[in-house]
C-alpha cells in the first residue's frame, strides 16, 4: 500500500536538504510524497510527516542518513525512532499558537486548490460577495486588523479611502518585498499557502473596486516567486482570477527601500525605486497615479479568515488596539527559531525565553532587536514588554513585521549601532538629505567614538544626528534608523565607551 508522506518544500527546509530526503524516500519506499510549506518549526526541518491511522506523525529533523534507519523503524506506520515527534499539532510550539493566517501552512499542498478548499479556503471571498463591497470593508474595519508590514495602519480605513477615491482604475498592490532581518513570514506563506494571499487580494479588489493586483516580491525569494506564479496559473485556470480581477507578480531588484510602499510603487512603474512624498496617499494617488491599496502579504492573507469567521471572532483576540494574531518570527541566536503565530499581548520574555528557549549558543541573552533593522534593541530588563504596537512604541521600539533577532552577551552594541547606519547608507534611495548624508556621517561619528575620539562630543553629535534623521527623513528608513542606534546608546551605553569598559573589566 502506498503511504502518503508530507515533506516541506519551503526554502528553509530545502536549505536543510528536504529535496534529497524526499528523493531518497521516493526511491526507497512505496510512498506518495506531497510537498508542503513549512509549519515553521525551523530547528526540526526537514520535518517529514507520515499519514498513519492515528493521523499525521512527524519526524525531524530528518537527514538523508536517517532514512534507512527510519524506514527500518517503521516510520511509514508511525514507528518509534529517536526523531519521532508525534502528532505535530501536539508539539508544544504549535499547540501554544493561535494559527489563523497560517492555519494551512505546512499542512496543505500549496498548489492544490482542492486542498485549499478542503481546508476552509475560499469561504472568505464567498462571504464578501454575499455581503457586498461596503459591508466587506466595514467588516475588515471592525475586525481591528492593522497593517502587518510594520506601520500598523488600520486596513479597513485604508480600503475605505481607496474605495471612496475617484479614479479611472484602481489597484491592489501586495508588498512582498520582505527585507527585514529575521523575518520570513511572507515567504513562508507564499511558499506554503499562496491561495490565501490570492483570496485576500481578490477580496480587497472586490471591496475597493480594483481590477488588477500586483504582488511585488523580492528577488531573493526564488522559491516563493515560482510557487506564487504557479498558484496564479492555477487560480486563473480555476476562474478564481480572471477578467474581473487578475494578479501579476513583479520581482524587485534587491533594494531594501523598495519595501517602503511609495518607492515600491515607483519601482513597479518601472522607475528607480525612490520614495515619494506623502500626501498624496497611495490610496488617493498610488500606482500609475490611481487609487491604490497597498498592503503587506500577512495583512492581505489575514482577510479571508476574518471574512469567514467574522470581525468579532478576530477582534476578541489580542490586546489594546492590537487585535487578532501576529505571526512572530524568532531568529538570530535562538534555540527554537521559527514562526510563532499568536494573539497580541504575549511578552517579549515569553517569546525569547519560554518559546524560543533562549540562545542557541547557550550564553545569556544580552539584547534582542525587534522589528527588523529599523527596530530598537531591547535588553532583558524590558522583556516584560507585551507584543503590541503601542506598548513597543511607548518604549521607543516597534514591532515592525514581527521579526525578533536574538543576541547573546558577545554582542557589541556600538558595532550594531554602526551597522544600523551602515545599513541605512547602503540602502538609502538618496532622495532625502538626512538619510542620504546622515547615515554616512553616522557611521563616521560612531567610528570616531569607537576610536575614543572626543567621545562625549561625538555622542552628543550622534544624538543630534538621530534627532535630525528621525524628524527630518522622508520615509521610515532614515526616520527609524535612530531606533536601533538610540536604543543601543540608551540601554548599552558601556559599549560606546570602550576605554572605560576595558578599564572596568
Amino acid at each position: 500500500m502506498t503511504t502518503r508522506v508530507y515533506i516541506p518544500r519551503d526554502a528553509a527546509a530545502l536549505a536543510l536538504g528536504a529535496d534529497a530526503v524526499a528523493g531518497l524516500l521516493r526511491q526507497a519506499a512505496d510512498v506518495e510524497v506531497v510537498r508542503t510549506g513549512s509549519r515553521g518549526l525551523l530547528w526540526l526541518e526537514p520535518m517529514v510527516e507520515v499519514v498513519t491511522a492515528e493521523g499525521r506523525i512527524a519526524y525531524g529533523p530528518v537527514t538523508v542518513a536517517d532514512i534507512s534507519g527510519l524506514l527500518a523503524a517503521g516510520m511509514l506506520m508511525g514507528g518509534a525512532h529517536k526523531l519521532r515527534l508525534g502528532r505535530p499539532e501536539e508539539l508544544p510550539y504549535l499547540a501554544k499558537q493561535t494559527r489563523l493566517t497560517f492555519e494551512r501552512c505546512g499542512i496543505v499542498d500549496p498548489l492544490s486548490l482542492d486542498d485549499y478548499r478542503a481546508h476552509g479556503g475560499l469561504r472568505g471571498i464567498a462571504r464578501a460577495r454575499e455581503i457586498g463591497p461596503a459591508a466587506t470593508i466595514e467588516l475588515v474595519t471592525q475586525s481591528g486588523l492593522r497593517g502587518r508590514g510594520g506601520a500598523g495602519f488600520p486596513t479597513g480605513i485604508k480600503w475605505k479611502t481607496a474605495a471612496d477615491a475617484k479614479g479611472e482604475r484602481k489597484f491592489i498592490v501586495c508588498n512582498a518585498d520582505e527585507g527585514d532581518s529575521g523575518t520570513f513570514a511572507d515567504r513562508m506563506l507564499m511558499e506554503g499557502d499562496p491561495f490565501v494571499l490570492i483570496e485576500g487580494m481578490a477580496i480587497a479588489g472586490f471591496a475597493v473596486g480594483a481590477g488588477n493586483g500586483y504582488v511585488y516580491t523580492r528577488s531573493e525569494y526564488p522559491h516563493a516567486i515560482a510557487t506564487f506564479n504557479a498558484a496564479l496559473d492555477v487560480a486563473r485556470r480555476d476562474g478564481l482570477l480572471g477578467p474581473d480581477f487578475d494578479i501579476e507578480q513583479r520581482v524587485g531588484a534587491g533594494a531594501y527601500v523598495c519595501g517602503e510602499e511609495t518607492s515600491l510603487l515607483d519601482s513597479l512603474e518601472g522607475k528607480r525605486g525612490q520614495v515619494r512624498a506623502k500626501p498624496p496617499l497611495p490610496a488617493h494617488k498610488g500606482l500609475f497615479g490611481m487609487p491604490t491599496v497597498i498592503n503587506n502579504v500577512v495583512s492581505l492573507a489575514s482577510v479571508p479568515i476574518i471574512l469567514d469567521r467574522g470581525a468579532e471572532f478576530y477582534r476578541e483576540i489580542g490586546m489594546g488596539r492590537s487585535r487578532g494574531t501576529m505571526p512572530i518570527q524568532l531568529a538570530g541566536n535562538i534555540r527554537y527559531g521559527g514562526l510563532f503565530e499568536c494573539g497580541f499581548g504575549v511578552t517579549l520574555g515569553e517569546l525569547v525565553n519560554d518559546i524560543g528557549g533562549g540562545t542557541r549558543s547557550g550564553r545569556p541573552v544580552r539584547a534582542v532587536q525587534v522589528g527588523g533593522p529599523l527596530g530598537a534593541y531591547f535588553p532583558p530588563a524590558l522583556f516584560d514588554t507585551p507584543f503590541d504596537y503601542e506598548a513597543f512604541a511607548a518604549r521607543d521600539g516597534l514591532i515592525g513585521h514581527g521579526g525578533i533577532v536574538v543576541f547573546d552577551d558577545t554582542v557589541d552594541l556600538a558595532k550594531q549601532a554602526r551597522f544600523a547606519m551602515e545599513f541605512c547608507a547602503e540602502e538609502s534611495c538618496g532622495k532625502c538629505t538626512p538619510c542620504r548624508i546622515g547615515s554616512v556621517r553616522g557611521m563616521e561619528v560612531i567610528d570616531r567614538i569607537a576610536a575614543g575620539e572626543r567621545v562625549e562630543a561625538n555622542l552628543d553629535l550622534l544624538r543630534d544626528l538621530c534627532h535630525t534623521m528621525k524628524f527630518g527623513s522622508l520615509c521610515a528608513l532614515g526616520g527609524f534608523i535612530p531606533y536601533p542606534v538610540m536604543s543601543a546608546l540608551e540601554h548599552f551605553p558601556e559599549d560606546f565607551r570602550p576605554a572605560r569598559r576595558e578599564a572596568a573589566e
Partner: protein
Amino acid sequence: MPLIQELDYGTPESSATEPVTLTIDGQEVTVPAGTSIMRAAVEAGIRIPKLCATDSLEAFGSCRVCLCEIEGRAGTPASCTTPVAPGMKVSTTGERVRRVRRGVMELYLTDHPLDGFTSPVAGHSEFQEMAGLIGVREVRYGQEGVNHLHAEIDASNPYFQFDPARCIVCSRCVRACEETQNTFALTIEGRGFASKVAAGAGEPFLASECVSCGACVQACPTGSLLEKTVLELGQPEHSVITTCAYCGVGCNFKAEMQGDTVVRMVPWKDGKANHGHSCVKGRFAWGYANHQDRILNPMMRDKISDPWREVSWEEAIGRVASEFKRIQATAGKNSIGVITSSRCTDEETYLVQKLARQGFGNNNTDTCARVCHSPTGYGLKTTFGTSAGTQDFDSVEQADVMMVIGANPTDGHPVFASRMKKRLRQGARLIVIDPRRIDLVRMPHIEASHHLPLRPGTNVAVLTSLAHVIVTEGLVNEAFVRERCDAEAFADWASFVAEARNSPEEVAKVSGVPAETIRGAARLYAGARNGAIYYGLGVTEHSQGSTAVMALANLAMATGNIGRPGVGVNPLRGQNNVQGSCDMGSFPHELPGYRHISEPAVRAIYEREWGVTLDAEPGLRIPNMIDAALDGSFRGIYIQGEDIVQSDPDTRHITAGLAAMECVVVHDLFLNETANYAHVFLPGSTFLEKDGTFINAERRINLVRKVMAPRAGMADWEVTQAIARALGLDWNYTHPSQIMDEIARTTPTFAGVTYDKLAQGSVQWPCNDTAPEGTPIMHMNGFVRGKGNFVVTEYVPTDEKVGPRFPLLLTTGRILSQYNVGAQTRRTPNVVWHHEDVLEIHPHDAEERGVRDSDLVRLASRSGETTLRARITERVAPGVVYTTFHHPATQANVVTSDYSDWATNCPEYKVTAVQVSPSNGPSEWQEEYRELTQRSRRIEAVPAK
C-alpha cells in the same frame, strides 16, 4: 532696473478655486484648495526655508529644510508637500523644526565647498541664503569624511558647467529637464550617498541628449550648474526685461547686466509666451552681438567689385538719398523699393514701409514673410477673416488632440514644443503629418497616435482626404457649421471633398500614406473634445501653400474646433517678428493691419497722417523686383536685416537681379551674402541695442528694451529716419514709442496699444476699445469676416516633378541649434552642435548610389547644384532627402526651384526634384562663390589719421 528676482512661491499654483483659510505662525491666510503650506506661507509674507522646491516644479519633498509643525498632527511634515486644510494651524519656527533644519543644513555643509568669498555664486546663491536663514554656525562633523569635494567638473557644454562638488542632489535640474523641458536627459545615477546628477547614461553633458535649454541651470540653487559667463564675469547687478530675437515664440528674458555688458539672459517667469522657459538659442546664443564680424562703421563702394571703404554716417546716408533720387529721376518712381525685416522691431518695419510709401511714392515694399508665411495671411484671411493664428500658446494646455503638420516644433519652436510635450504626457493625443519622422513622432514618453509620412507636395491631397473622411463618416459638427459658417460655401465644399477621388484610398496612391492611417487620423481629430492644429512652413512653402492653409481652416470649421481654448489653427511662425512685419504693412498690397491699398478710406488715413497722396496700386513683390531688375526697370533697393541671397529660392536668379541694380543698400549686422552685391552697407543694431516691440506667433506684442547703446551709433529705426530726412521727409521721432503711437493712431487692431500699457504686460492684438486687454483667442463669438468661409481645395500637383534625371524629392527645414540663415547662430558656440548642413538620405537611396555615411555628395536640381555631407537615416522615407539651409557654404537654395505659391508667390522650398551622387569636393558654383565672397568682403585699410 535693479536685479529682478522673481518671488518663488516654492510650489506651483493650485488650479482649484475653492478657498481654504488657515493660520500660519499666527497669521490668517486664504488660498485655493490644493495649495501647499509653503506657497500659502509665501502668500502670507512668510518665507519658509527651502532648497528642493521651486514654483516651476511639482513639490518633491527631498531637502527637508521646509519642515513645519501642525497643531493636532504628529511629526514634522514638509511644507512643500503638505496641502493646506481649513482651520489648520501651522507653526514654521518651532524649536524642533529649527533644530532639524540646522541638522540638515549642517549635513549638507559636510559635503560642500565652504568658499563663501571665492564661490562663483558668492552673494547670489539660494543655498548660501538658506544657510543664512537657518543659522548654522559650525560643521561639527568636519569635512574629512567621504565627500564629493574633489569631483571632476564637467565643462563640456559650451555655455554652462556642472560642478558636482556644489551639487546638493536636490533633483531640481533633473525635474526641470523632465517637467519644464520634457527631454529626460538628466537623471540621478546611483543611490544613497553615491547619488549623482548624470546626463544621459553618465556621459558628458555635451554628448548626452541634453538640448542646452538652460532649465537645469536656472533651477540649480547652488551654482553647481552655472553659466560660464557668470564664472568669467561675476554676478550681474541689474536686469532689463526684453524679448528674444530668435523664433516666433517670443520668449521674454531678463537681460542680466553689469553696466552695459550682458552677463546672461535668463527667461522671465512672467513672460506670457514662455512662462520662464527658454531654449539654447535665446538663453545662450546671444554672443553674436559682440562677434568680431560685426560691422560697426557705414561703408560704401562704387562698384561691387571694389573693396569696401569705411565712411561717416552722413556720407553713407547722403549717398543713399542721392542715388535713390537719381534713379527715380531717370528710371521713374517705381524703380526703387524696400525689403523690411522680420527680425527688426515693429517700429523699424513700419518706418521702412513708410519710407517706400511716403518717401518713394510707391508700394514697392516686401518682406521675408513672402518666403515663409504669406500663405498663412492669405489663407486665414480668406476663411476666417484675419491673417493670423487663432490662439494663444496657453491654449495648448486644453488641447486633447494635436495635429502637427509641416512643423518640427522641437527644433523650430522648442519652448512651445516643451509645452506641447507636457500636454501630450498628460494624455493628449498626437497626429503628425510630415514626410520626415520628426522627433515628436516618438520620443521619451511621447508617441504620435498617427504619423502620416506623405510625399512632399501632397499636403492638399491628404488634408482634403481627411475632410473626405469627416464628411462621409458623419463626423461634421453640424451645429457649429450651421451657426457659424456660410451654408452655401459649406455645401459646395462638402460635396467636393466627398467625391471618391478625395477618398483616402485614392489619395494613398499619390501621397504614399496608407488609407487606414488617413482615416484613423481624421477620426481622432474629428472626435476630439478639443482638437488643435499646429503648422509650419511645411504647409506654406509649396505651390499650393495657400490652398493647404485653407484646407486646415476647413478642417477646423467642419469639426467646430475654433473659437475657444484648446482648439484653433495655429501657424508656428518662424522669425521673432514675422507676425509684426506683416502686421506693419510690409506687403506691397497692404497697409498696416492688413488693409488693402486699393481701399480709399484706408489710404485716406495715411494720406492725412503723412501728408502725401498714396499710390492705389500694389507695388512689387520680391520676385517681381528681381525680375524687374533684370529687365532694367528696377534699379535701387534698401534691404533692412534680410539676406535674400541665402534665404530666397534660386540663388543664381537672385544674385543676377541684385548685380543688375545700380544702388543696393544693405542694412545688417554682418556682411551677409546679399552684401556681396551691395553698394552701401549700413551697420545694424541687435535687439539688445534698441527699444521697440516684436509680435510673436500668438499675436502678442512684446516690448524689446535697450540694454546697451547701439554699437554702431544708431539704432535701425534711427538709420531709416536719417534716410527719410535726407530724402526731405520731416520725421522727428525721438523714441520708438512715438512710432507705436502713430501705428495705434492709424491701425484699428492696434488702437489700444501704448508703451505704457505694454510695460504693464504684453497684449495680443486686436487691442482696442472692444478688447482693451487684447485678444488671446480669436473668433470666439463669430468669425472676424462674419460667417466662416469654406474653400474648395482642389489638389494640383506641383510642376516640380521627379523624373529619371532628378528622381528624389528634396525638402528643407531647420535644426534646434541654428537659426535660419545662421547669421547669428553661426557666430556663437552653437556650431558645436551643427557646424555644417548635411543631407539626410534613406539607406536604400544611399545604397543605390554608393553613398556612405559622412561622404561628400553632389546635390543637383534643375536650378543648380551644391555639395555637402550625407547622413544616412531612416528619418526620411525612401525617395525623399532633407537638408537645412543654415550655412552659406552649402547654399541649399542654389538647388531649390523658383516655383511658388499660386496666391502669394511664397517659394516652393519644400519640394525640389534632385539627384544625389558621390562627390569629390565643392561644386564649381561653391568654388566660385567662395572666391566672390572673399573678394567682395575686402575692406580698405583705414588711412592713418
